[in-house]
């Protein structure tokens, strides 16, 4: 079956190549048949990758250890559940899982958008297929998960590391993968919109949900990773700023920024270049995150391994994505001009802009700090690392500022907030923050960072509570329902907005959990039976040690009793497990007493069975469970924001009754007045509609020329409905009918309008060529820079591993000799 798997991967690569060729050729020749066949090929890739995945899963289940990958990551005693999840447990399989997920997401995205975004779909398919080809290429040339042993296969596998045999670790990687991989879909739509020039806001509608989906799974993956680290590793924390942790977080920042700034584009037609850039950056960072874990470019305790060849391939691909992406943005700048300008800094769009700057700064700061050892080594020859204190010094103020903006944003009106409006909106939230801070101070809390965080949390909760309360009261007045129904109706009418508020509450809870760590208490102590240690309000007493065995592992367990303020509150059983296949790698089994207020976290560090003495680390972690609760709320909020219209059909039908429909309008109006224009969610958008052209030349030029009315964001003549566009279309038809060629017609428009403004893109001549060359020059410089760093880094590393190479050569010689012997025996 391994051979079938290998050929399936090869076939998937070929079908991807065909999908790219067919869809691009089809789009250029306007051949529906070619485009359809390209789309069909992309579906075939999905089927092939599903088949390849089935082969891999079958190999794990049937213990086919002739496949190296199966041997490395499973064994016969491993439970079926962990055998299945071993599929993505290693480097080769994780790359195949990447392609499998992308093929599924690609098929869903194409299927759901092929009618609505007919013009974009060919290039969406092509972009996704190119990304798939890159990962399939890696599998074909160096990381084939179906590689088999040339010699006799082992009778049993090596088994998955016991620390990974944990439910959180099973779902953490796929969650993160789903988040990383699904970011390809918004990128593909962005590239398609840039190539086709269909840069009105319709492409945003296609990607908004995908970005939110991706963002949610990134959040889920990061949270599960935190829970795993907290519960399994036994150091009492959940985030250590390790390069691989950071890599997973990097795309989260631009994705979060995009989810906010997309509202500014929808409402005010601003930040158009910014939004499309965020999508490109987010996708590039997903590739970077994937590369960082798999190539060992940065030293990490989490990295899969070190592979210079893979690092070079990723460097080239990421550079290509950045150069092509931003090259297209520069090429399409004329179509991406903002329709409006920022009117006041006391406006919601300004708050979103600042929030975006900070989020993007956070991403680049983390990137810089994570890459700092590699950069410093390339420049100075000395590898200098920065640790968690450095990250915390920067990220804590950044986090607090973002929390403040989370509260401020909803209080500001679009366009401009008046002074009286500001006073009215800020009064209660500010009072909540000040009274919280004063209360905490009076109670004797003196950890300043945590105190500020608590006050800001109160501010945000005050803001959101005020929004919900005002909206519900107004709606109750209009519809005559009770307050709860009014609130549900409010959420149903503006799912994105109120779903967003629920997400913000979730973030507040998470911040409370983070702030609680300021009051963390830890003790390390040696106890004999009957002795106890005091940590904060708690005491932990050792009762005895025991050894038990369940067949798969030997369990060494400490029996301890926990007291709170002198009263017994429970028993805990921290331990160390010795798995059969990994007896030299005992796993720490943390025991916790969890409450909403705090966790008592006990780790059995060392012990002596002969005299029953044991060393423990006991930690009291205040508010830590609020982090996980906050994530649950964040998930609920995301669900609300993502719910389709049909889920609220019952409310819509109710509102379509004469009474309700008459009530709906005043509700929106009153909300709009009360909240200074932020209550309405609908927004007039220009639906793209093609205007019939009589010749191919006219059709092409309708897409190359843009409307110059000044009101629309330079829609193409094929899309714009305004009277100026009508007039320009008339001029175009006259020119075409007079028999002029393309060049002459363009010159006519340039001379008629006195500049190249009506042109969607500058003419490719003279100084204008600089506009075309610029991204390639930047990209070229970037590639040279990457090459320089890679060469320096490789040189240094190669000297480190010269000894290894010698060892490997010896091993290779031994392997060759064994192989020769076996071949001789066969003869």
């Amino acid at each position: 079956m391994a051979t079938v798997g290998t050929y399936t991967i090869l076939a998937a690569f070929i079908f991807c190549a065909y999908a790219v060729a067919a869809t691009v050729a089809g789009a250029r020749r306007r051949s529906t048949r070619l485009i359809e066949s390209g789309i069909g090929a992309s579906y075939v890739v999905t089927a092939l990758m599903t088949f390849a995945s089935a082969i891999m899963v079958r190999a794990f289940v049937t213990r086919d250890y002739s496949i190296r990958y199966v041997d490395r990551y499973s064994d016969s005693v491993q439970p079926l559940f962990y055998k299945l999840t071993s599929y993505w447990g290693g480097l080769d399989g994780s790359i195949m899982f990447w392609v499998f997920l992308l093929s599924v997401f690609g098929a869903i995205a194409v299927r759901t958008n092929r009618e609505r975004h007919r013009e974009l779909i060919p290039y969406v398919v092509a972009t996704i297929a190119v990304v798939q080809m890159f990962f399939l290429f890696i599998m074909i040339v160096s990381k084939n998960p179906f590689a088999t042993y040339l010699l006799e296969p082992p009778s049993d596998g090596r088994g998955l590391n016991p620390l990974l045999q944990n439910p959180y670790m099973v779902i953490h990687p796929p969650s993160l993968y789903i988040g990383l991989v699904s970011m390809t879909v918004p990128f593909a739509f962005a590239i398609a919109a840039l190539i086709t020039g269909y840069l009105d806001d319709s492409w945003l509608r296609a990607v908004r949900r995908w970005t939110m989906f991706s963002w949610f799974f990134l959040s889920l993956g990061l949270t599960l990773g935190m829970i795993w680290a907290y519960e399994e590793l036994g150091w009492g924390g959940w985030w250590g700023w390790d390069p691989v942790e950071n890599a997973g977080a990097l795309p989260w920042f631009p994705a979060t920024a995009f989810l906010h700034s997309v509202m500014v584009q929808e409402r005010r037609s601003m930040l158009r270049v910014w939004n499309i850039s965020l999508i490109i950056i987010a996708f590039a960072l997903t590739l970077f995150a994937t590369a960082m874990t798999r190539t060992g470019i940065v030293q990490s305790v989490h990295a899969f391994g070190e592979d210079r060849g893979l690092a070079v391939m990723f460097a080239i691909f990421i550079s290509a994505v950045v150069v092509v992406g931003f090259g297209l943005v520069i090429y399409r700048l004329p179509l991406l001009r903002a329709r409006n300008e920022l009117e006041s800094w006391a406006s919601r769009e300004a708050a979103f802009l600042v929030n975006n700057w900070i989020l993007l700064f956070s991403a680049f700061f983390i990137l810089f700090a994570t890459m700092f050892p590699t950069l410093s080594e390339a420049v100075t020859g000395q590898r200098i690392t920065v640790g968690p204190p450095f990250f915390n010094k920067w990220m804590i103020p950044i986090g607090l500022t973002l929390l403040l903006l989370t509260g401020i944003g909803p209080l500001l009106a679009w366009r401009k907030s008046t002074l009286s409006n500001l006073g009215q909106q800020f009064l209660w939230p500010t009072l909540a923050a000040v009274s919280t801070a004063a209360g905490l101070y009076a109670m004797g809390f003196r950890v300043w960072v945590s105190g500020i965080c608590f006050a800001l949390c109160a501010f945000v909760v005050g803001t959101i509570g005020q929004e919900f309360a005002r909206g519900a009261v107004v709606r109750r007045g209009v519809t005559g329902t009770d307050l709860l129904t009014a609130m549900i109706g409010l959420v149903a009418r503006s799912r994105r907005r109120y779903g967003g508020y629920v997400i913000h509450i979730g973030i507040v809870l998470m911040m409370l959990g983070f702030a609680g760590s300021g009051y963390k208490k830890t003790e390390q102590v040696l106890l004999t039976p009957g002795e106890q240690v005091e940590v904060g309000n708690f005491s932990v007493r050792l009762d005895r040690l025991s050894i038990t065995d369940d067949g798969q592992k030997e369990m060494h367990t400490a029996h301890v009793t926990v007291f709170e303020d002198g009263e017994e509150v429970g028993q805990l059983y921290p331990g160390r497990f010795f798995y059969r296949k990994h007896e030299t790698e005992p796993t720490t089994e943390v025991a916790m007493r969890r409450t909403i207020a705090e966790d008592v976290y006990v780790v059995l560090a060392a012990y002596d069975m002969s005299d029953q003495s044991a060393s423990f680390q006991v930690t009291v972690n205040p508010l830590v469970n609020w982090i996980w609760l906050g994530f649950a709320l964040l998930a609920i909020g995301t669900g609300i924001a993502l719910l389709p219209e049909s889920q609220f059909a019952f409310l819509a039908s109710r509102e379509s009754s004469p009474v309700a429909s008459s009530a709906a309008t005043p509700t929106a109006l009153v909300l709009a007045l009360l909240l200074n224009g932020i209550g309405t969610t609908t927004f007039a958008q220009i639906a793209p509609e093609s205007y019939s052209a009589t010749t191919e030349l006219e059709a092409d030029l309708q897409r190359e020329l843009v409307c110059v009315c000044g009101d629309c964001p330079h829609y193409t003549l094929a899309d714009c409905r305004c009277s100026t566009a009508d007039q320009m279309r008339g001029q175009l038809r006259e020119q075409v009918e007079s028999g002029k060629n393309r060049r002459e017609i363009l010159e006519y428009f340039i001379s008629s309008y006195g500049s190249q403004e009506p042109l969607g893109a500058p003419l490719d001549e003279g100084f204008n060529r600089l506009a075309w060359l610029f991204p390639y020059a930047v990209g070229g410089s970037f590639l040279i820079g990457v090459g320089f760093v890679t060469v320096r880094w490789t040189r240094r590393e190669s000297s480190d591993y010269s000894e290894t190479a010698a060892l490997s050569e010896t091993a290779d010689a031994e392997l060759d000799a064994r192989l020769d012997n076996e071949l001789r025996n066969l003869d």
Partner: protein
Amino acid sequence: MISNKGLKILLTAAALFVAFAGLLWTTMQDGTQFYMEVEEVTMDPAAWDGKPLQVHGFAANVMRHPKSLDWRFEITDSVTDRRHTVTAVYTGIVPDTFADHAEVVATGRLDGDTFHVDPNGIMAKCPSKYEEKRSVDLDALPDEHNTVVTGAAGN
């Protein structure tokens, strides 16, 4: 000639850049550590005395003082050929896979010949590093299953 608006933007950008660079420089003063291989440390220990270091290597002769969390071990540059060695001491909890042959990065300061590891300063390769590092030739070791070092870490 730069317009008034241009000048304002330029000055703001310059002020922000200077503030950022200054802040970066200040915070980096006490936040950075030198990442060293064992061989680099042993070549001139006096040069690194008292400086914050991260030493990368392989653990050897790992010993715990009975009835305590005091550890003494060696960090070597190679599992098979221990040409360069630094003696390290540590008090506290170690990652699950911290044992002889474990690939580690220890954070701390050199005091004479002894490397004093900071609290929670031992990182061993995490299990999500599923691949064996190529510098450790497994076949060259006595028992390959016992030497695949993919230990937990205080991440």
